[in-house]
Structure formats: structure tokens, C-alpha cells
């Protein structure tokens, strides 16, 4: 199936959300440290996985001050993509070509304060039923790798909710309205307040539509063309009809209800009313 409106909205919204949080909140921290070997059955024999203690490194080089890595140090020598190193930004690790499992690897990277995920899970799954590994951004030795693939917190889970079309103008133009919902799982009230406050102020923002091909990472989690800059990517599509954030509602799980949860996380909700005037099937 070819790309539809909803696909484009999901990609565009996700990339915008990530950039907005990192830009407005400077919600990242630069780290330098060791990488640890672990076996990963999902990888083919070409690569060995060396994980950092943090998931979801910053991929976006438009974020001022964030260290976007282009390689790691193996035995003190820099090795980049040309040397067979793949950087898996999503899982926070380096995939190194060869069979060695005892390499000494270090590296520098910026890690997001909040991991950002697109999800199909319901709110009740996200808040009540799912179990999460807390991947705290505050350093606490002894360091070790963080297991790949599973979602970790602090995190924001984004999902598309209801959508509707209503006639807007002669000629068949529609007023398309979509509710995008975000569930925020934070380690402390400061983090939660920060995210809710940033996105409360995102009302009236415009989001450039970016097609799925504009998604920055490959199947191994590394950057397509070795670089990604949200501002440049957004500008490639500046002539298209933008998505408009018509309204934002933020709320938090009441303290009474938070105490009934199996975890100690602070929970918040952000509901975005996104609007675009468009013709059907475009």
C-alpha cells in the first residue's frame, strides 16, 4: 500500500515531537563512557553488539550542544562507519564488524531525557499493565549495557487516536482533525512538569509534513546517509500544507491514583488536536 495521510502525519508528528522536546527543553545530556559486549540473537554474525548504559541517543544534529556520535573509540582509536561500525541510536549501542567480544570500546553521545516511542498500546496497557525497565539518566555505578529492543522509561508514548473529516470549502476540501495522544512516564515531578509545560505551549505550532522516507534511521538504528538534521529535513517539505496544532490539553494522573500503580513513575497525558485542510486521498 502506498503512503496515506495517516502515515505521513504519524511520521511528521513523531519527528516534530522529538525535536520540539530536545530544542525547547534542552532535554538531553552528553555522556562519555564505556560500552559493554553482549550477545544478541537478532543480529547476524557480521556484527557484535557493544551497548552503552543508555537508550535512545540524540540523532538530530540541529540540536545545539548535543553530541551526535559518528563513531566510537576501539582500544583508544577512533572507528567510524567506514571502519565497519554501525551506531544503533535507538538501542544505544555500537555494532562492530568482526568476531571479537573483548574489545575496549568507549564513546561520547547525547542521550535524551525522555525516550520517545510510537505505540499502539492502550493507555491502560501503558500506565497499568506494562512493566518497564527504568533507564535513569542520572549516573549510578556500576555501569552496564541496557538490554536492547524493550521500551524503557522515562519515556513518552505517542499514539494516534480518533480522526474525522468535515467539509471545509467548495471543491471538496476537508477539514481533517486528528487527536494525537501522548502518555508521559517520568521518574520525578520535575521531569513531568517540564514535558507537560513544553507541550502545553505547543498550541498553534505548525508541523511540516515529512513522508515516511524522511524517517532518519535504518533497520539497524543508524542514520541514513550518516546524518540527520530535523530543520533541514523539515525545510525540504516547506511547500506542502502543514499540520496545525489547534489545541493542546495536558493533565496528570492524580496522586491518589498514582499510588495504586505497581510502579513509582509519575504519569501525565498530552492530548493534541491536530488539523489540516486537505483534499481526500492526498
Amino acid at each position, binding site marked *: 500500500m502506498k503512503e496515506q495521510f495517516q502515515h505521513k502525519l504519524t511520521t511528521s508528528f513523531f519527528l516534530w515531537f522529538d525535536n520540539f522536546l530536545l530544542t525547547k527543553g534542552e532535554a538531553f545530556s552528553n555522556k562519555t563512557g564505556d560500552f559493554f559486549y553482549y550477545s544478541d540473537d537478532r543480529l547476524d554474525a557480521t556484527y557484535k553488539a557493544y551497548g552503552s548504559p543508555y537508550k535512545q541517543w540524540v540523532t538530530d544534529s540541529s540540536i545545539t550542544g548535543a553530541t551526535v556520535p559518528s563513531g566510537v573509540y576501539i582500544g583508544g582509536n577512533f572507528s567510524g562507519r567506514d571502519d565497519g561500525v554501525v551506531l544503533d541510536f535507538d538501542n544505544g549501542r555500537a555494532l562492530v564488524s568482526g568476531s571479537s567480544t573483548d574489545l575496549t570500546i568507549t564513546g561520547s553521545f547525547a542521550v535524551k531525557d525522555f525516550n520517545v516511542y510510537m505505540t499502539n498500546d492502550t493507555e*491502560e496497557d501503558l500506565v497499568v499493565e506494562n512493566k518497564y525497565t527504568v533507564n535513569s539518566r542520572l549516573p549510578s555505578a556500576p555501569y552496564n549495557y541496557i538490554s536492547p529492543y524493550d521500551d524503557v522509561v522515562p519515556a513518552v508514548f505517542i499514539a494516534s487516536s480518533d480522526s474525522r473529516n468535515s467539509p471545509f470549502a467548495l471543491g471538496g476540501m476537508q477539514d481533517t482533525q486528528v*487527536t494525537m495522544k501522548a502518555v508521559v512516564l517520568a521518574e520525578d515531578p520535575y521531569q513531568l512538569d517540564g514535558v507537560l509545560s513544553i507541550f502545553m505551549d505547543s498550541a498553534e505550532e505548525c508541523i511540516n509534513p515529512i513522508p515516511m522516507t524522511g524517517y532518519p534511521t535504518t533497520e539497524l538504528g543508524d542514520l541514513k546517509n550518516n546524518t540527520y538534521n530535523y530543520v533541514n529535513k523539515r525545510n525540504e517539505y516547506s511547500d506542502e500544507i502543514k499540520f496545525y496544532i489547534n489545541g493542546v490539553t495536558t493533565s496528570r494522573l492524580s496522586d*491518589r*491514583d498514582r499510588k495504586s500503580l505497581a510502579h513509582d513513575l509519575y504519569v501525565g497525558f498530552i492530548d493534541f488536536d491536530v488539523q489540516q485542510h486537505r483534499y481526500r486521498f492526498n
Partner: protein
Amino acid sequence: MAKLPLDVQQALQRQAPRLLKNKFKKEVDKKFKTIKSEMVKEFLQLPVTQELMQGPNAPNISGTLGGVTNLFAFIGFDKGDQPVMPIIQLLENTSIQFNKELKQAGNIGISYNVNLPTAEQIFALTPMPWAVGRSWAKGIETGISGLGYLLRKNSRGRSGSAIQSRVKVRGGKFKNTAYISSFINKYKKKFKELK
């Protein structure tokens, strides 16, 4: 038909609004009160309102949950809560304010404003019991997750017996339905047509 002399027409135009003001006011006020009373009565009869007013033991007469549990428990209200009261209060506070007499040619009467609450005002007064900021009334129209239900179940069912359902109730079970927005639009139109 014979036409009134111009000076008589002008005199009528000048004097009639003032002389008829009280009569118009009385008539419009009477019609306003009738519509307002009809509005409150209709709101109380809406299936969602009825179901919520019956509390934790109500059947799912709104059909929003396919007959499994009911809105009161699903949203996560506590036993004794009266979630629709703030809406009834707002509707009861609907008032009419008379302004000046109309003085444009061809119009005899008095202008007025009806202070009917907006859907947004109602949404602001109807917070989810577990997340202030989100409106359950808006959720009836756009969708509600099963989070409130699960939270209450985890905290030993403060909503009462309805929470003890053995069926796993999830957000996907909820079928949204028209409620506040269409209701307010309907009466906004009715009040606009007051004559």
C-alpha cells in the same frame, strides 16, 4: 392596501419600540423560560446523563460499553459522586439579557443575548476523576480509555459493585457517542430563533 403617511410611519418607528418594549420583553422571556426548561429536561433524559446519574449500579443504557459495566464505573467515579451536577448547574444558569430597543428601519423590537454555556465551558467543569485537565464529557464524544476503570479496580473498586465485573473492560470497548457539543448546538440554534 393604503400606505400610511410618511410622518405616521416615522412616528411609529420612533415610538413603538419604547411602548412595546415591556410587551416584547414579557413574551420573549416567557418563550426563553419554556426553551430553557425543555433544555434541562432533555439533558436529564439523555441516556448518558441518565446512566451517570444512576451511579455504579446502572445498566449501560447509553450503549457506549456494549452492556459491559457502565459509564460511572468505566470512567472511574467514586460512589457518591454526581458527575453531571456541574453541567445541570451551568444549564440552569442560562440567562437572557435584554438590551436596547431596535431602531433600524423595518425592525420593531428589542435585542437580547442568551448566555448559554459553551461546550468548552462544560468540558472545563467535567474533569476525569483520575486526571484533572481531561474532560469525561469530551471523552464521551471522542473516546475514553479504560484507564479509570483499571485504576479503580486496582484500588479495590471505590466505584462500588459495578467495578467487580469479571469481563476485562478495555478502552477498545468504549463506543463514543454525541453528547454535549451537539446538544449545545441544538439549543444555541433554538435560542437564536427566539422571537
